[in-house]
């Protein structure tokens, strides 16, 4: 398997007033294509910050990040957005569906952005696969938490990204829904050959990944 992602001595620091907060320190990480990785650690250890850096949503203070051999830490906001648009799907703990878009429209958004043909039909197929056929035209406020997260996953994976980043995807869900979401994510990654990096506190979910990374005080333990 070839390398998908490479982080080289990545540091992230914040200056708040007089205090310098070292969020991540000397992170070196290499992931292969189709690899599933879970990131665990205590609250405030830097897990979410790490995937924010990987997604290009935050700039590292120092160090280099390569995605598919391209150094994304050097790119500007729009150039990273272009990579994210095609190759990175992100799933949040709080779902973040666009409130005034229906389930289909939320999913079709990324497909249209990637110039897929028949985006709405493809979105419907995907939602149907996730057991949401009866919810196509519902707004997010009319969906349960589990349903919202399934729509969010559908949106993140619709364009078949190389990398899926999931930040506590089951954090707001009950155990039954958590299991369902975990199955969907891992099955999809396996079927489509995507890499999956999942940040979680849930040890059961973390154990489903082939590789487990523990972060402590901003460093890989």
């Amino acid at each position, binding site marked *: 398997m070839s390398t998908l992602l490479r982080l080289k001595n990545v540091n992230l620091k914040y200056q708040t007033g007089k205090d310098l907060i070292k969020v991540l320190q000397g992170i070196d990480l290499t992931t292969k294509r189709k690899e599933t990785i879970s990131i665990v650690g205590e609250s405030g250890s830097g897990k*979410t910050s790490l*995937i*924010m850096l990987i*997604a290009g*949503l*935050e700039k590292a203070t120092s160090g280099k990040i390569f995605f598919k051999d391209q150094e994304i830490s050097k790119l500007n*906001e*729009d150039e990273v*957005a*272009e990579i*994210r*648009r*095609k190759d990175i799907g*992100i799933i*949040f*703990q*709080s779902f*973040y*569906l*666009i*409130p*005034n*878009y229906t389930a289909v*429209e939320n999913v079709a*958004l*990324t497909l*249209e*952005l*990637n*110039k897929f043909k028949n985006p709405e039909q493809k979105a419907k197929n995907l939602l149907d696969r996730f057991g949401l056929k009866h919810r196509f035209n519902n707004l997010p406020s009319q969906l349960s938490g589990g349903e919202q997260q399934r729509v969010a996953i559908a*949106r993140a994976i619709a364009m078949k990204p190389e990398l899926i980043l999931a*930040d506590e995807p089951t954090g707001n869900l009950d155990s039954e829904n958590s299991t369902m979401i975990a199955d969907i994510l891992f099955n999809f990654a396996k079927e489509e050959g995507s890499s999956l990096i999942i940040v979680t506190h849930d040890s059961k979910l973390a154990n489903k990944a082939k590789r487990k990374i523990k972060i402590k005080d901003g460093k890989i333990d």
Partner: protein
Amino acid sequence: MEKLIKSNELSLILKYALIDLSRNYKKISSIIITLFISLFILSSILTIEDSLKKELNDNARALLGGDLEIDYNRVQGNLDLVNEVKTFATISQMVEFSTMLSTTKEANNQSLFSRIKTVDENYPLFGSVVHEPVGALDRIHKEQNTILVNENIFKTLKLEINEKIKVQDQLFTVVGIVKTVPDVSGFVAFGDFALAGKQTLELLKLNNLGSFLNYEYKVRYNDGDNPNAIKQRIETLFQDDEKVILRYPENSASGLKRVINNFSQFLSLVSISAMLIAGIGIANTLLSFINQNNMSIAVRKAVGFFSLNIKAIYYLQLFILLFLITSAAYGLSFLIIPIVDGYLSQGLGLNIKPIISIVNFIKVFLVGLLVLIIFTIPTVSAIDQVKASNLFRNVFQNLQFYYSKKSVVLSLFLLSILILLFTIGSARPIYSLGYFIAFFACLIVFFLLSKLIIYFFRSLKKISNIPLKVSIKNITQTKSITPITIMSLGLGVTLLLTLALVGTNFKREIAKSIPEIAPDYFFLGIQKDDKKIFEENILSMDDNLNLETVPIISSAITKINGVDPTTYINSNNDSYWVIRSERRSSWMDVAPKDNPIIKGEWWDLTKPDELQISLDAKVAEDFNVQLGDIFTLNIYGREIEGKIVNFRAVNYRDLSINFAMLFNPQFANNIPHEYLATAKFSAGKSLDETKMLDVLPSLSIIKIADYLSKVTAVLDKVFIAVTFISAITILIGLIVISSAIMVQGKVKEFQNLVFKILGFSKKEIIYSSLIEFIIIFASVILIAILFATIGSQFIIENIFELNWQFDLKILVYLGLGIGSVTLLLIMLTNLKYLNPKVYPLIRNQ
């Protein structure tokens, strides 16, 4: 921007703009309402202006009375030339003059100074005379001593059809009422008038100066003739006749066009003020809307949208919205036309129809677009501040207006275009520019005032009264609506108060001039031989009569320093009237008290055989003539050269006897002349018009009060329109405030919830809102009064050149009125936040 030119991305942006707009339009209703009202006013002004001008242009020949007008002014003119024109075109001959119309009832007879137009059977050459009963117009041609009077003469003199009235010493039968005549471009636009047959001229004594006699020959070209060829033929025919003035349709109703231009310029400026105030509200509402969509924007960024794409979606929504609103506003502005038409058809006989103009539509759209872009640049730029990474932290920062150097420069550039759009090509560009400078100066002052208030109240530390503390906290908090409230309310109130002060001062000055300065009557047409009879009779009516009688002659300036006078002055200049046609002049031994000499000396008595001229100083300045310059005057056909020996300060507005030119009496007494008189009666005494007209039938009597009341009536109508437009500006200001409160809605609701939990009563919450309003409004009204005072004083003293007076009463009434309405609105808007539901808020729903 290069990414935007990809067509597939553009279609994607368009799609999402349409989806967002169709689902969010309710949230931006205040943008829609304010934008619609402002664009509707602007559209209405442009549509009315265009429709009126089109009506005037379409009916230019009817308004002039022909394809061409041969005007000989006071003399009959060269009839040989006129008859020659009759060989290749149709001519309608008419003579206009002013005289007294009197009733011949058994008692309580009344008189009215009116303009009579004698017409032949060819009249009118274009258009039609609206009159009743049917056939009345024919009767004035067929029956001698018959007359058609306008509705006002008919009502004022309480006439009946076929009743006899007296015109000088002749009895005429009123055969009908004339409602409108097509050729309104001349005198009949606002005064009383009557129509009579051409034989009337021979019956009356009309050669005195007070008759304001005017001979006109209207020409209609024969069908199939080449108009330019005929025009040239007539011009060649009359080229050596110095007394004639040829007029063409394009010159018709020029006075009316000037009034329309000035009035529409003024209303356009008020409407752009409304738009700029609306712009403040639009920026604010849009920022709140973007804040509400903060998360959606972050999600879009997370899934790969460029910041530019997202901004393009917002701009496109605004663009679509603007297009729809402009279309609606422009379309609905046509509904105003029938209302205006109702007004105009009564007075002027004009029937205006709505004119669809692509140029006007584009102009309205462009103005809307400029205002939108100027005010939304800092708002939409705030999208750059939204970070997709916030989605991980579940925190969303409240967005602020974002000003980059580039956006500030762009905004200023667009603002300059907007100002130029309203300045260049306007009737008075300097006034427009001055207005904009004053507007932005006020805006800056009100903004600084808001900052000063916030700074002052922040420095207050020891406040124990809880509602006061809460209200001060509301005023001074970071997301306070204080600046927006103060700016929008301040500008609206300033505009209304300024116009109110200008209006009251103007009306008071006109009303004041009747008892204090002006005489009660002007008497015109007193012949040299009748002077003694006139003075004896009028003095017998009042022993303490203040009577002033001065000689008058009519003269025309034909040359200045030996050259054509038109080379000295532009026809748009205020003083052009001095050379436009013959003017009345007088002479006197001593300089009049109210016409002080400001340069030069009074008459040189050592040169009684030379004509010396005393000239109005303003006229001298406009013509750029100096003492010692020579005017060549045509007096009764003789050319006489006169030397300018002094300049006088003449105030025509005092309505006493004023002349642009006065002559030295030693020279002028030898010229044939007649007299003009003014009379002011002592308390309890009045003029017996009937007796006076019995003695001197050809005398013209003008009652000053009647004319001033007519002017006041016209002004009243103008001020109703102006007040209506400025009230709309206030309304827009109120919508802006209301939207600003709604922007704060969530914070307010949460705050009230906390108050509720802490045990605040509803009364105390209302009380704190009241204090907040009083603090803001008190400071706004004080500054607005200051600006209105300065502004109205400048307008009254410098533009109208009248005396200005502070009017506290009108300011108090208006201030209280606006204050009450604003308070009511604020209370109503806040009402729904007074009883927040606890559960949804604490669950963050």
